[in-house]
């Protein structure tokens, strides 16, 4: 009888962990890429843009990605922070790193970060 109760409890715990993991995997993280008009941002190649840049940015989401509802990344601000006047040929690489995944597991979905890597070419003064 005792073993049977323990088994049911363990089963409940395992199902609970599984559901939490499933929820964290299905996190509703919504990332928005836009500009604020600080510097020109082009997707097409531009003349004179000969300097390469790579920016690594961690985007924080909470409660399976429900908070915040939308995370905005201002691409022009990223370029400006790197000292560029104009940026072009952008590549946006969105991923869940091993570190992000471990945070997701440890916090049981309360903290679900994602990593965004933005790379491109630009021109400086």
């Amino acid at each position, binding site marked *: 009888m005792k073993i049977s109760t323990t088994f049911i409890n363990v089963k409940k715990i395992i199902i609970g962990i599984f559901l939490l993991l499933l929820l964290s*995997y*299905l996190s509703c993280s919504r990332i928005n890429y836009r500009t604020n008009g600080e510097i020109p941002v082009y997707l097409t190649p531009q003349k004179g843009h000969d300097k390469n840049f790579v920016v690594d940015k961690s985007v924080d989401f909470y409660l399976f990605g429900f908070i915040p509802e939308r995370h905005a990344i201002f691409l022009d601000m990223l370029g400006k922070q790197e000292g560029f006047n104009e940026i072009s040929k952008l590549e946006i690489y969105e991923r869940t790193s091993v570190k992000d995944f471990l945070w997701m597991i440890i916090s049981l979905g309360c903290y679900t970060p994602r990593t965004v890597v933005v790379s491109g070419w630009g021109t400086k003064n």
Partner: protein
Amino acid sequence: MGNKKLKFRFRYCFLISVLTIFIQILSSCGSNLVISSSRCLSKDTVDLNRVHFNDEWLTEFEEEQVKNQSTINKQDVQKFKLNARTHALFGSHLPKSYNFKICPFLNNNLRANDSTNDSIRELNITTYYSFKDVILGVVPIYSPRSIEINGLYLKDIH
């Protein structure tokens, strides 16, 4: 006899859980998406920059910023909203990362033919899991993610 049966069920349940967590690790660690401009050509005009209209009131700072740019008539502009879905198996392990080539997608959906000088401006890109993605992704073998692209389509005015 009862204990043996319980032990077997416990082991079975534990094994399934470990396997599920392993698949989750496999799929989550690899859910990668690349929004790429690799096939954007110099002749295409695709950017995220703000469009300034003829009748728009600008601050001194904005006027300074746009003094070398031409302003545009509102009737030459058309707002658009497009949706795309990335497809990947086991997170994004197959392929390693889903490469969404934005320029061919925009050209196919917006431009009538390659020779037009129309431009695509004020792009606003959002990646998210739609309800359909969540339902399809419950079993982490197939892991889709949605992309929403808003912007302005400017007809060739030259």
